[in-house]
């Protein structure tokens, strides 16, 4: 081994991603006295940090602000000794006892890796979407909503996130056209809340309406063209927020032997162990995840305890 190689930092566990899954796992590994380093390329707290208010995380009868939950999870993990490195993991490979991680802070070695990289927003893929990115087309209401005080908006999507973000944006926008490709698939509670804004005229819901084009000029977005029953319709808006689903952050795993499903979610066994020994996965990135903060946290705890078993050498592999 070269001198340079012996200097590669070695860790017991490296957790990739500091969303609710990664941070919960870190609380557990560090409390078990397992030395733990985390990598975070975006916001500590993951998607929870960019969510305005979370009403369904247990223990908060009045709900909790996403940023507050994220910060409290971070503090709790750091209290027990977790270290969060602000940077990105770009590749991993199996070197036997240790796995190698290529990162923006250089190469690292870890006995076990936990992939808790969650997922990112999908694009709709229509003309104008790329061109007006951050100049009228947005994917984060809590980041960019404040620029639309008393302005007209369109929101594209019909799932939980789209409805939640529409409700958040009503605090700024004068009116919101909600463009739903098929039907609304959000929870009943969210639909009931949305109904209040529909009744008072703040939100208009357009079902079976597909977004075709985002139109604007140098000053920004001017309108969105849609299609319903073969007929085109134009909505004059100042901005468009897109929430049409999520795709897993697993690009960096594609060259590895780790099994992914056809969309790219990581396949694990019941121990949350992937097909690369010593590499585990939990939270939204995992095939079969329920895309909730409570379940991401639960999987984080499970993964940490399974990692402990693995490090102690008594994990029994389960056939997939």
């Amino acid at each position: 081994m070269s001198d340079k190689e012996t200097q590669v930092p070695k860790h017991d566990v490296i957790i990739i991603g500091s969303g609710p899954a990664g941070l919960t796992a870190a609380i557990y590994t560090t409390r078990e006295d397992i030395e733990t380093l985390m990598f975070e390329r975006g916001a500590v707290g993951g998607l929870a940090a960019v969510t305005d208010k979370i009403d369904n995380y247990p223990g908060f009868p009045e709900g909790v602000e996403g940023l507050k939950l994220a910060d409290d999870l971070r503090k709790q993990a750091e209290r027990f000794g977790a270290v969060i490195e602000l940077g990105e993991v770009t590749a991993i490979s199996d070197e036997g006892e240790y796995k190698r991680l290529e990162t923006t802070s250089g190469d690292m070695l870890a006995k076990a890796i936990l992939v808790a990289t969650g997922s990112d927003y999908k694009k709709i893929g229509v003309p104008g979407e790329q061109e007006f990115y951050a100049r009228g087309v947005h994917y984060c209401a809590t980041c960019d909503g404040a620029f639309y005080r008393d302005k007209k908006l369109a929101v594209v999507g019909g799932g939980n996130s789209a409805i939640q973000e529409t409700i958040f944006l009503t605090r700024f926008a004068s009116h919101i056209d909600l463009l739903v490709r098929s039907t609304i698939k959000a929870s009943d509670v969210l639909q009931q809340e949305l109904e209040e804004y529909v009744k008072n005229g703040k939100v208009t819901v357009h079902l079976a309406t597909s977004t075709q084009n985002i139109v604007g000029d140098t000053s920004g977005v001017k309108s969105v063209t849609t299609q319903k029953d073969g007929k085109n319709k134009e909505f004059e808006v100042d901005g468009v927020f897109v929430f049409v689903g999520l795709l897993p952050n697993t690009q960096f795993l594609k060259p590895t032997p780790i099994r992914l499903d056809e969309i790219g979610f990581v396949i694990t066994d019941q121990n949350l162990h992937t097909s690369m020994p010593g590499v585990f996965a939990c939270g939204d990135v995992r095939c079969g995840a329920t895309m909730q903060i409570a379940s991401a946290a639960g999987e984080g705890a499970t993964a940490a305890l399974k990692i402990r078993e693995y490090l102690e050498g008594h994990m029994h592999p389960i056939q997939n």
Partner: protein
Amino acid sequence: MTVVAFDRLRQGFLKRPKVQGGPIMVKNITIFTTNTCAYCHMVKKYLGIKGINYEEVNLDEHPNRQAEAMEISGTMTVPVTVVTKQDETKEVIIGYNLARLAPAVA
């Protein structure tokens, strides 16, 4: 459908800009933020870790300065970090983009 990175502005993450000549000292830093923006917290956290002072313009508290942020960045997003160097040149960093922020404030 195609994927969009959650914050596309961070796409330049791995592309570090080339530094020409010696570094010019930072004179001051202004960050345009809002209360609910998680990436604003990350920029402040990064500068905090590095012990670097900055002025924060919270657009929720000072909505009258929104036009200024939009003019400087050409976008309707936060965070916008403006790094003014001793020679009065300015570097504007849109979003939480460590590959640009780190060398700009070094």
